[in-house]
């Protein structure tokens, strides 16, 4: 019994080590581990509340739906809890494939169009499957995060 416990503990520690090694210096998911988890039922919702509930972030892709392996843009709208436009915020946007443990091969740029509307250029999802888009809202001394789930499917030619 003791042996079994030791074996189990050894296995657990080994698996922890291997996970640690895997996550290692290149872990995309580690970079975004502080972002809120996406609720399964709400996974593909294009409107999400930030982690501390002060902001709502809404996105629309261009083109829509998001194409596989082509550049696309996002239009992001940031509102406060009362649904009013949030001016003078700064946004950070990135995306990962959590199950693949990698991100995009590009670094998108965010442009503030005013009136709480932002354009994100240079996004590219190069693989099919489940992606997460991470948005950091930096506004009035608060930094709050939102996560969007997007499943990218292959379509017939």
């Amino acid at each position: 019994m003791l042996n079994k416990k030791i074996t189990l503990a050894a296995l657990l520690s080994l698996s922890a080590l291997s996970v640690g090694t895997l996550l290692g210096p290149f872990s995309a998911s580690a970079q975004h581990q502080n972002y809120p988890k996406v609720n399964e039922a709400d996974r593909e919702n294009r409107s999400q509340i930030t982690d501390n509930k002060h902001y709502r972030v809404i996105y629309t892709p261009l083109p829509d739906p998001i194409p596989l392996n082509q550049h696309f843009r996002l239009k992001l709208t940031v509102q406060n809890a009362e649904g009013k436009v949030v001016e003078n915020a700064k946004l950070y946007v990135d995306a990962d494939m959590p199950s693949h443990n990698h991100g995009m091969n590009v670094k998108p740029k965010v442009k503030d169009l005013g009136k709480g509307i932002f354009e994100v250029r240079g996004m590219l999802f190069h693989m099919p499957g489940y992606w997460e888009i991470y948005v950091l809202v930096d506004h009035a001394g608060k930094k709050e995060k939102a996560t969007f789930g997007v499943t990218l499917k292959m379509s017939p030619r």
Partner: protein
Amino acid sequence: MLRSKCLPVKSLTLLGWAALLSGLALAACRPANVQSDGAPAFSAQEKTLILSLSPRPRPPENPGNSLADSANAAHFGRYLFYDTRLSLKGDQSCASCHHPGLGWSDGKPLAVGLKTTSRNSPTLWNVAYQRWLFWDGRTDSLWAQSVQPLESLNEMGMSRVGLLHSFHKHPELRRGYEALFGPLPSNAGLPAQARPVPEDPKHPLQQSWNQLSPQQQLAVNRFVSQLGKSLEAFERQIVSGESPFDRFVADLRANKPASKELSVEAQKGLRLFIGRAQCILCHTGPLLNDREFHNIGLPKHPHLPVDQGRYAGLPKLLADPFNGLGPFSDLPSREHEWNDKLHYLSRQASNKGEFKTPGLREITRTGPYMHDGRFKSLEEVLLFYSQLPNQPPATGRREDTIPPLELKPEELTYLLAFLKALEGPQAGPELSQKPKDPVVQRSPS
């Protein structure tokens, strides 16, 4: 009177009943997703994936080369492609490493020019579809790529100034050039060989290049970029024809039952490819290629230094004066959307050990495989994915989407049969032979 197609029950013999019952029993044992001949009965979800792989579309445009789709430039490009006068010793052409009879590659593990290089010669099949060129993607267009082997000290060993002298020396080369681009730039007073050597500022070729005035450098750079653009116009024509897989997909699209275009084994391989083996994650779309870079965790090559792949290629790409942001591109502006791939590039630690995904059309013709040609056959490639070696990757980290496939021997056969079905017809003489004249000869109307 209409005759029933059904067999009258009364007419069934005992033997007939036995056969019917055993047939029913077999059908009952057969999984629902398998047809009577053993071929997969593809589900709607599988069909969606299969239809994403065919037909092959026209190659994407390259607005950075105004002659990319010019027949005259392609003709001159073909003349140059097979011309050994473009090499330092006059014994090599582009076709030496990209031979049409060897899958537009060379059949060798590592390319051999003036010296043996550290990379496998990539095939030119369907090269027009690539987003990045070279295994490490260090150029963003085919014309920018074409310049580098001409000048590589391991490959053809020429320099752009040496090439200009050759074009002055050989009337046919000059005539071909001038028919497309106008007067050849002057070579008066230029050293015999000169070119930039960014990795070694003290290199004699760089020292010679420094002797040229900025105007002379500009003229020589424009000249060599035009050679590259002609070569691209030719190489864009090297596209796959219709394969058995394409015909199978056309039947599937038309809901034709039991297509015979693919063997049962190949269809089983196709099911594995889009299903359990998950090859389709990186080998997506009609070129079976995501045109991006991955670290599949190849261990260190026993005889080669560690190759950082995309990680080392990215700074070279951004420093290349022939990229889409440079003065030799034909894009109307640097902000043209074609340049988005450069504007938003990101160099990350995860790029270490990443190499470009090869397309799988014609893959049976283009061995050996991998960036360093370590696998002689596709069977070796599949065995790699099946077992995955115990050794760590040469550099970086293997992507999490690559678990050992643990393929059964028959599954290996199925995948090989599917890959074989991606072969189209061989290239015809209009691509595989050097034209007699560098200029298209128009017949009198």
